[in-house]
């Protein structure tokens, strides 16, 4: 007889809080209309902050497992819970006035955002491929809808449709890969899969399955050559959703990827390292080179985010505690920087809609010096100019690569960052060195949005000037992976 399952929900607490807040938002929306829906944003923010706090309290409290090892809550998962909740909270702040201006304020938006967030958190706590799949679907299905939120815009429908079709295609790859891995090892649990393959010569079925899983995950982080959806989705989705896709969703998939490849698949390391090497170089180079030709800021940031994924894959290639910790730190730095960059875009508009063309920012330095200064700092952090967060992130990543002997990979990566300087600086050129022609972006004052920008700015300065405590945090987060 099968023993009754022992359900311990404790390890799921942060995820449950976020999920329950999402349902609460839906319920509250059923109440008689009270005019503004701004309070829904406040409720969402509250839920995310509580989840963040619960994750912080749990920090260092050792490891907890649930559902027969399928879910594992350790410092590593908590680190990602914190990053994801932080990013989601900043994005809720950015969304408040932005959605109202775009005429798209709705309970569904916040509910879907929270469900998506809980999916991401689930991914970071996954210790089983089934949970990985569950998390990815929960995250993605919500994002497909969010991407098409501005349904009156043709680009939005295109984005949503494209994201959905390619996304389910990738999910199919992932599922097929999971099936093959199950066939090869007899389990979908990370730990049991590892012990099944450890010490044996690589099995074709296993490698094939692993390859399919990589394709599925590679799609979600938009690594080249699985990146085709990214520019269109980034362009068509509401800017706040773009920020969520670019930061939190990537962080979550990286969480699963790192746990899978660095922690659990160490015994078969060389087999996937070469593949990741190629993915890293392709992502960096294609992302940066194509970004050079973009004039739409959101498309440019899409390609730049592909390049940043390439940098993070460098850390994955490197492997080991240092490579993993470097990726974690980079994700944190990238989260603040990218949310800030998209945040500035949400605060600018033209009479015809969002200000997304680089020409819209001409002369911004003269009209709104503080906003231009903020965008400049975010872009310089993306370039990797010290003393900002992006520089320290790159320093750790490439340092890990050099340490493990991947010197040429590091050389390719740094040359790529020099290429990247060109297109980031072009935005700065427009802001400070060109005079506006025609209609330009105007700043929309928003307390919540400005608060999100200030927090992000403080983040990139703190991570750049005093990175030590955060590096320690990243290191203690990866410690449980590599015992």
């Amino acid at each position: 007889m099968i023993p009754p399952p022992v359900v311990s929900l404790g390890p799921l607490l942060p995820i449950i809080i976020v999920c329950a807040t999402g349902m609460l938002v839906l319920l509250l929306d059923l109440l008689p209309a009270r005019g503004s829906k701004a309070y829904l944003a406040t409720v969402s923010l509250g839920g995310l902050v509580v989840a963040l706090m619960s994750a912080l309290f749990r920090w260092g409290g050792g490891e907890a497992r649930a559902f027969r090892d399928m879910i594992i809550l350790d410092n590593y998962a908590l680190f990602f819970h914190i990053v994801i909740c932080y990013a989601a909270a900043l994005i809720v702040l950015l969304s408040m006035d932005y959605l109202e201006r775009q005429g798209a304020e709705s309970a569904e938006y916040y509910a879907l955002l929270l469900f998506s967030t809980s999916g991401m958190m689930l991914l970071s706590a996954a210790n089983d491929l089934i949970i990985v799949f569950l998390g990815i679907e929960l995250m993605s299905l919500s994002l497909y809808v969010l991407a098409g939120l501005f349904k009156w815009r043709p680009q939005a429908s295109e984005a949503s449709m494209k994201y959905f079709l390619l996304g389910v295609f990738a999910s199919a790859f992932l599922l097929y890969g999971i099936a093959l891995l199950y066939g090869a090892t007899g389990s979908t649990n990370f730990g049991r899969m590892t012990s099944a393959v450890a010490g044996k010569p690589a099995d074709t079925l296993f490698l094939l399955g692993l390859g399919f899983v990589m394709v599925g995950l590679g799609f979600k982080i938009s690594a080249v050559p699985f990146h085709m959806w990214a520019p269109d989705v980034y362009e068509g989705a509401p800017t706040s959703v773009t920020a969520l896709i670019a930061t939190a969703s990537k962080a979550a998939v990286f969480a699963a990827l790192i746990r899978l490849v660095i922690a659990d698949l160490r015994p078969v390391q060389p087999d996937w390292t070469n593949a990741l090497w190629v993915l890293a170089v392709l992502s960096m180079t294609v992302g940066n080179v194509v970004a050079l030709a973009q004039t739409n800021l959101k498309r440019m940031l899409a390609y730049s985010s592909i390049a940043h994924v390439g940098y993070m894959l460098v850390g994955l290639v490197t492997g080991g505690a240092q490579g993993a910790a470097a990726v974690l730190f980079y994700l944190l730095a990238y989260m603040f920087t990218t949310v800030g960059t998209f945040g500035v875009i949400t605060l600018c508009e033209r009479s015809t809609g969002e200000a997304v063309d680089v020409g819209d920012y001409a002369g911004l330095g003269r009209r709104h010096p503080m906003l231009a200064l903020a965008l400049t700092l975010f872009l310089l952090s993306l370039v990797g100019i010290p003393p900002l967060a992006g520089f320290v992130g790159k320093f750790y990543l490439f340092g890990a690569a050099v340490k493990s002997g991947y010197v040429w990979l590091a050389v390719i990566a740094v040359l790529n960052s020099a290429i990247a300087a060109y297109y980031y600086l072009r935005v700065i050129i427009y802001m400070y060195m060109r005079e506006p022609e025609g209609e330009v972006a105007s700043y929309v004052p928003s307390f919540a949005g400005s608060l999100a920008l200030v927090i992000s700015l403080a983040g990139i300065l703190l991570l750049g000037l005093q990175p030590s405590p955060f590096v320690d945090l990243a290191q203690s987060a990866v410690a449980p992976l590599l015992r």
Partner: protein
Amino acid sequence: MRGLLTAVTFLPTLGAIALMLVPRTAARAIRLGAFGISLATFLISLPLYFAFDTDSADYQFEEFAPWLPSLGASYHVGVDGISVLLVLLTTFLTPIALASAWTAIHDRTKEFVITMLVLETGMVGVFVSLDLFLFYVFWEAMLIPMYFLIGVWGGTNRIYAAVKFVLYTMVGSVLMLVAILAIYYQHGGATGTFTFDVPTLARWVMPPGTGQTLMFLAFALAFAIKVPLFPFHTWLPDAHVEAPTAGSIILAGVLLKMGTYGYLRFCLPLFPDAALAFGPLVFALALIGIIYGAWVSMVQPDLKKLVAYSSVSHLGFVMLGIFTLNIQGLVGGLIQMINHGLSTGALFLMVGMIYERRHTRLIADFGGLWKVIPAFSALFLVVTLSSLGLPGLNGFVGEFLILLGVFRVNRWLAALAALGVIFAAVYLLWMYQRVIFGEIRHPENERLHDLTPREWAVTIPLVIFIVFIGVYPAAFTARTEATIEALIAQVQSKAGVATLPASRAERAPARSNPETAGRAVTVARP
């Protein structure tokens, strides 16, 4: 004098932050405030000169604080004979550059002075950093204010020049970043101590081989672009022509010196074998730069371009001096760095003055100025003569010492390099003749006004030092010799060329003992 270097480094940035709070309509207050801050920085940097122990080859005014302990990066600053004069040059030129822009910059004055002050922090930081991580932070951070100076306040083609400047420099410096990481892990792997501390790394003898060669090349490329060494110089004329006068003064006066400083501080002591092996190549490139820079200067119709190409030529001399690896050549190279900063800074300053009056820099638009503005013409003569190396003025001292050093290495090389001095006389005197002498050919030039009190005040300090170094160079060379001797001994002993007199060799191990000297502050000698 603990904290002195930190104060000199960060006072300008603190001032810039304070100026951010001043409303932009108060342009005069902003200008005065920025000038006052930079002048105060210069004044508090003076003890570096007066309290500097000339007999010591050690780092002085050292400060040490852990920064990233898990990584081995620290806030470690200090000066020795190589850097002390460059720090002073920076703090000296910044107020002059700010004052030169008093009437030239009208647009966005507040942003301009803030950029200049942040730039000063970056420049001083580069020269005082004794930690590779810290050095790289300043080195890269400094790019951005210079980019804004050229791109926002520059001439018509400013955006092209600014982007070219940044991209050239970035490509060089990112490769240096990989080399920094490589030396960090190689040193750590060999000794067990993972550190970016420059004195510690410099004491370690890196095994010769491909690794060392590649690291040397990565560092050397970054610095060669900055110097600029032929054929990496093409960004320089563009940047100089487009930059505003204040930017040109800083660019020529200080930024180019960072390249030559990098060779002295990092390439020679860290990679001695590779540096010796590549010496002939550097000689060849430097010589080409000297001759080529001079020839191209001769045919320039634009005054700023002429001075820019003359910099390529003059910096070629500095590179020759550094790679002679003898005391005359190195001291000459170092003093020539200072001289070039003063002379070329002054040349750009004075070209800027006539540009402000006539809004042209074409030599053909001038002529006969000595009748109209005699005081300007007289000072311009002194500056021109200093740049071409007239005995009695500063330029002669540096070039003479360098040629002496080169002569000891290779007579033919010295003979060829001396041609550069002759060509310098040709293009500079010819330029002076066409601009100042002759008849007034353009009626616009008849009513120019002579130097204003402000212009006198910014030019005279430069002229004083031009003459002072020319007649009494020991006041400056004395501060460099001990360090230079120790450096030569260190390079030769590490590269296995131990053929030194005992007295010099003894000094080498004394060069900054990490645990003792590393954290202690040298007691100032009156």
